[in-house]
């Protein structure tokens, strides 16, 4: 087997093994080196199947490369590389090994050429990533991790059942366009949808990500949802349903993000919002739209990673992450402030930042395909994301009132990781052709025309104006120490309560029934007993039980004697 034929996940799994047996600086160095070797190995791969073998009656294809999987392969390597640098100061074997395995599983999933391999990595993503949540080692994190695992495994099980249906319907397990025909299509879409955090299946993300460790969340934000976006882009491009699901995803989380206090949870909601844009792009399904979705996924990994890193730095240095506790940190954490603002500008899609060059592709595609209302909703979501991720995050963490917290900029490795991300945000924004060359379809798209730039800048400036106005008027909802209910209330509170209540009722009814039956039985027995006393004069009354026992003993004794002689 040639070196180039080794699938990338093998490298990263090997890296995890090395991370498990080494310590300190050597471990950090090895992890970075392995990721770099794997990336170089992947660089410039051409389309084709590089590894396949027969399993029972089916062809398993663990390593298939085409332009769509390649671009996700690149960004996953980049995310792993940046994440490892960000976590270099860490001395926690569990987290570092889990991070390598998790990144490897993500890579395994995007290069899977068949549904069985996809399923295997789908589940591995869940089982490896949950350790990044548990590594926080708090009770909250533990319980959130359990809930996360349940949802993720459920998604995997549905995917497996979908695969079985798919095999019986199509007689192949190759992972290509699936579409919504048949039971298999729907089941697999549901499985992808859960991992993609579709509305009503989104709470695993907003629940678990903010409970993970500082460095864990950075990894988590990069892989799981993007694997799902990749899977949708391959299996369901042009499925109209996805447009409406995506636009709902882009819009509803911003309302929650505005009132949420935990700033990493705000970012989790804005992650949903960004994935919404990608899902819309996939739903539209034209070359421009899918390119836009993929490009936005690429950029999102970088800028959302940057934002999670900056909030992680705040949590790491101050031990707090609630907007109500923070503020005024620009004085003591100036570098983090600047880097966070770059991330905020990118996610808000300011011209010359990375978000602009990819989000505008999806928006343009919506317009050219005649989805005017969808476009309007996306425009609303764009203004909203600027509001909560672009302004709220930096404002409440670094400005607002002075919280008087003593802090300093984070360790050098954290700053370095953030600087790399920030540089990429600007580089892609200024020179988007670099990113466009990697996209799956040949598209001639130029984001920097006068109309686009002016429209976007106007939108953003007046959104900022609205923020200022609302703040001055005192209409802006203050940051409060609180829990805000979301759909997860139904399975964390409502159903358990309902079950508890209904079981109480069931037990009560059960007890009453038993009592009633027992009374009836006693009545019957005493009736029979009364009858029996009349009859028993003939039989047993003169021969009490003791008599019988004695006779049994006598028989047994004789038996014993006989067996001895």
């Amino acid at each position, binding site marked *: 087997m040639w070196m180039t034929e080794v699938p990338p996940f093998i490298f990263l799994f090997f890296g995890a093994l090395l991370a498990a047996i080494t310590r300190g600086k050597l471990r950090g160095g090895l992890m970075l080196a392995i990721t770099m070797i794997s990336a170089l190995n992947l660089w410039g791969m051409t389309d084709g199947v590089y590894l396949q073998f027969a399993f029972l009656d089916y062809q398993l294809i663990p390593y298939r490369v085409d332009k769509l999987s390649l671009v996700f392969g690149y960004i996953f390597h980049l995310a792993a590389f940046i994440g490892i640098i960000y976590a270099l100061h860490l001395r926690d074997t569990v987290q570092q090994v889990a991070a390598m395995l998790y990144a490897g599983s993500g890579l395994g999933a995007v290069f899977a050429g068949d549904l069985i391999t996809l399923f295997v990595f789908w589940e591995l993503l869940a089982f490896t990533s949950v350790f990044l949540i548990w590594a926080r080692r708090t009770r909250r994190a533990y319980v959130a991790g359990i809930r996360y695992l349940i949802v993720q495994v459920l998604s995997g099980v549905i995917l497996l059942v979908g695969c079985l249906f798919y095999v019986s319907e199509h007689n192949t397990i190759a992972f290509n366009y699936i579409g919504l025909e048949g039971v298999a299509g729907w089941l697999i879409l549901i499985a992808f949808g859960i991992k993609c955090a579709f509305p009503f299946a989104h709470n695993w993300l907003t629940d678990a990500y903010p409970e993970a460790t500082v460095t864990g969340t950075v990894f988590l934000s990069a892989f799981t949802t993007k694997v799902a976006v990749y899977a949708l882009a391959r299996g369901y491009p042009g499925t109209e349903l996805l447009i409406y699901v995506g636009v709902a995803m882009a819009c509803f989380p911003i*309302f929650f993000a505005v009132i949420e206090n935990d700033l990493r949870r705000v970012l989790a909601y804005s992650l949903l919002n960004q994935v919404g844009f990608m899902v819309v792009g996939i739903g539209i399904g034209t070359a421009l739209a899918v390119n836009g979705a993929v490009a936005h996924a690429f950029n999102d990994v970088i800028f959302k990673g940057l934002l999670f890193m900056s909030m992680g730095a705040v949590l790491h240095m101050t031990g707090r992450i609630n907007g109500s506790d923070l503020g005024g940190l620009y004085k003591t954490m100036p570098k983090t402030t600047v880097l966070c603002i770059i991330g905020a500008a990118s996610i808000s899609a300011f011209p010359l930042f990375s978000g602009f060059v990819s989000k505008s592709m999806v928006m343009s595609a919506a317009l050219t395909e005649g989805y005017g209302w969808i476009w309007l909703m996306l425009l609303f979501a764009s203004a909203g994301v600027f509001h909560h991720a672009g302004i709220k995050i930096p404002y409440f963490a670094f400005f607002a009132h*002075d919280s008087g917290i003593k802090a300093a900029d984070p360790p050098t490795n954290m700053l370095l990781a953030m600087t790399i991300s920030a540089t990429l945000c600007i580089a892609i924004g200024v020179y988007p052709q670099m990113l466009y060359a990697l996209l799956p379809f040949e598209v001639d798209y130029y984001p920097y025309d*006068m109309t686009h730039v*002016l*429209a976007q800048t106007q939108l953003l400036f*007046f959104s900022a104006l609205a923020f200022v106005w609302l703040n001055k008027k005192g209409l802006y*909802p203050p940051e409060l120490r609180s829990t805000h*209910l979301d759909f997860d209330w139904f399975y964390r509170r409502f159903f358990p309560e309902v079950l508890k209540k209904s079981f109480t009722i069931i037990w009560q009814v059960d007890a009453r029934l038993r009592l009633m039956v027992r009374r009836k039985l006693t009545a019957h027995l005493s009736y029979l007993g009364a009858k029996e006393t009349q009859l028993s004069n003939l039989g047993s009354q003169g021969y009490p039980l003791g008599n019988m026992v004695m006779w049994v003993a006598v028989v047994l004794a004789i038996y014993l004697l006989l067996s001895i002689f």
Partner: protein
Amino acid sequence: MNQHKKGLFDSPKNVQRVLYFLYAGCFILFAVDFLVHRHISYYWENVWAFYPIYGFVSCVVLVIIASWMRPFLIRDESYYNDEGLDGEANEKALEKTEQGPAASKGDSHVDD
């Protein structure tokens, strides 16, 4: 780290400067709308100053709806802490069992 260090935005003058910069930016962008001929692909874009108005209004609507939602959704910070697996109650039970077997036998138990 000097906690009492005067920051750039501790003086209201500087904050005001930033705001003036924002107002000026808004005004210029608003004015440019009249000078630049943009190509229209959706009929709403013909509306006078469509993007500035849309940006402003949608943010205000967003915040107003979110504030309206809040009273329905807001709960105490420890809302999910007091029940089930999360539970303080469970944690207390756990602590009790950790104190030894006597503690886990219940309050009415009498050792004879």
